[in-house]
């Protein structure tokens, strides 16, 4: 347990009296999505500060100093990404917000867009100013209809109030925002597929390089950021890089939205400082497993390799470095708890089926391996027809699809499958040897 009285120590627990929920402070409050509410609670003051007291490069420097890393999953340093934009040369530049939130176990962005859309708009104004873009686009997944309507409403309010348009907050800064709805495709969360989708094409990924900063949407210099990366910036500008960097660990700073789902007592989104432990999230806040024991968890969405339910992993810090050391990833911070009674073969078949469904079919390793063979192998195991050789074949298949596909989707499926073999091999062997799963519970529905 960290010493919460030492004020020089970084904040790594929500128990620390210095810690404050900032990004979710308006979420769940009736009427918080309206401009009047947002402004009455200090809204758009960060944008005013950035646009009137700072230069674009000072904004980028502040974000760099905060050590903010992208919250979409990959964790690339945001300030560095922004500085990749080429020098202004008169061409249109674009900021794109990735609100395609489709990684299973992730649901943090949805509530911000529904309940606090102005927080996102304010962050986008600051982001556009930093990279000197006058046009911004939000790519929101098609199912988030309420979020879409709330965003469109908020943008109209902001335009009418002079917060968007040709003279943002009375300055010479120009920013306008278009919201673009997806239509049900996980792959469009991959930034180059997202750009194709924005251009009215099929959502197939593009080859990198060129990176979006060189040739993005319409071939123009583009920066793509996640929703909560952008909302983090609002608070970094308000409170300073030092405040943000006072939370977290060496390689992971700031406050972050974690999500927890699966059978726990209080599933939901919780804002915590980086470096808080899984135990703090899973037990102290979410109340621990409900209706029986758990045997493992996905630490950050279904594409992050699952970990077994041991003290070692539960006490681990939820940050980029610790998870990398454990052979997994922080991902989106979407924890999914796997109850003991859920057979791992059936749980992983569900995950594999997801990636199989979402494979775009562009490249062979993913289309033939992940989307075709792998789910069939799982079906064979679940039908009680698997052999030990099949397990070897499956392991070879996923190993060979690592790093060989066009985009990260194949890895996103292969990595958790590999981890499930590593930690729960006994369940795979059981179903092969006995022709039935080790755990047979299949009714999870409540009356």
């Amino acid at each position, binding site marked *: 347990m960290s010493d919460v009285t030492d004020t020089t120590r970084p904040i790594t627990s*929500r*128990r620390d009296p210095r810690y404050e*929920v900032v990004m*979710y402070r308006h*979420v*769940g*409050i009736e009427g918080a999505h309206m401009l009047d509410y947002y402004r009455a609670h200090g809204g758009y003051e960060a944008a005013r500060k950035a646009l009137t007291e700072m230069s674009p490069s000072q904004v980028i420097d502040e974000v760099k100093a905060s050590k903010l890393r992208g919250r979409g999953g990959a964790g690339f340093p945001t300030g560095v990404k922004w500085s990749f934009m080429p020098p202004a040369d008169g061409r*249109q530049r674009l900021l794109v917000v990735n609100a395609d*939130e*489709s990684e*299973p*176990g992730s*649901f943090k*962005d949805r*509530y911000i867009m529904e*309940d606090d859309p102005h927080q996102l708009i304010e962050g986008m104004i600051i982001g556009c100013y930093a990279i000197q873009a006058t046009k911004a686009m939000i790519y929101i997944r*098609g*199912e*988030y*209809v*309420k979020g879409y309507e709330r965003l469109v409403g908020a943008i109209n309010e902001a335009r009418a109030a002079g917060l968007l348009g040709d003279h943002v907050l009375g300055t010479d800064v120009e920013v306008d925002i*278009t919201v*673009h*709805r*997806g*239509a*049900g*495709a*996980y792959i469009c969360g991959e930034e180059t597929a997202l750009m194709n989708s*924005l*251009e*009215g*094409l*099929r959502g197939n990924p593009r080859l990198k390089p060129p990176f979006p900063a060189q040739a993005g949407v*319409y071939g123009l210099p583009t920066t793509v950021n996640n929703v909560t990366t952008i909302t983090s910036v609002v608070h970094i500008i308000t409170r300073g890089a030092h405040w943000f960097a006072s939370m977290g660990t060496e390689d992971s700073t700031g406050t972050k939205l974690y*999500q*927890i*789902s*699966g059978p726990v007592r209080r*599933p*939901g*989104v*919780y*804002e915590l400082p980086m470096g808080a432990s899984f135990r703090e999230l899973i*037990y*102290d*806040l979410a109340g621990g497993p409900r209706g029986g024991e758990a045997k493992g968890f996905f630490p950050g969405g*279904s594409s992050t390799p699952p970990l077994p339910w041991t003290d070692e992993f539960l006490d681990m810090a939820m940050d980029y470095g610790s998870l990398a050391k454990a052979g997994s990833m922080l991902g989106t911070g*979407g924890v*999914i708890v796997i109850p003991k009674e859920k057979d791992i073969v059936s*749980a992983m078949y*569900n*995950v594999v089926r*997801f990636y199989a469904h979402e494979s775009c079919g562009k490249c062979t390793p993913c289309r033939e391996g992940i989307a075709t063979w792998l789910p069939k192998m799982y079906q064979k195991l679940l039908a009680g027809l698997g052999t030990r050789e099949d397990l070897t074949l499956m392991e070879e298949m996923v190993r060979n699809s690592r790093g060989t596909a066009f985009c990260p989707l194949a890895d996103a499926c292969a990595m958790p499958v590999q981890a499930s073999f590593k930690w729960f091999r006994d369940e795979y062997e059981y179903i092969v040897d006995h022709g039935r799963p080790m755990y047979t519970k*299949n*009714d*999870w*529905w*409540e*009356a």
Partner: protein
Amino acid sequence: MVELETVPPFFADKQALVGEILGRYPEYGKRSAVMPLLWEVQRAERYVSEARLAEIAEILDLHPTEVKGVMSFYSEYHGEPVGRYHLQVCSTLSCSLAGSDQLYDYLVEKLGIVNGETDEEGRFSIQKVECLGSCGTGPVLQVNDVYYERVSRLRCDSLLEALNNDEMPPAWRERGGDNEGEVKAEFLADAAARDEGQGEG
């Protein structure tokens, strides 16, 4: 002889809408309007017919096949009519752990249709979908545009009854974690200690 059915054009009397949608994108990015135009048709007609594909193609100077190519990539666009109440059952892991597989089976049993089908009356259709981003409040059933969360057996019955009476209940948005409002989630141990203290006092 096959008599071709002709339908009145959809966009002919909606020039303001078309203009607004095209205006969202730069002239050189006109093609970006393909998805919003598909959405407009589907919202009104519950699917996108070949005739509508051709209309969209004409607006955007594309070949209808290109528009169909885009449409067929995305699982939310339908090439055949769906029911007035299109039931989209999330089937991904967190919802599955909350009973979505049994919820799906129950819907199949109650409505007599399976994944991808529409009933004869055109009232209900079922689609098994992947993660809807409501993992903390599963199982989730999306009916048309509306999310119904934590759909228990009892609540499923009441929802179906309402839909059978052509009443669409407002969204069931469930709370949890820091979504609850002004008071953010307390640590459970702290809440328990406080409740105990109050009990003694």
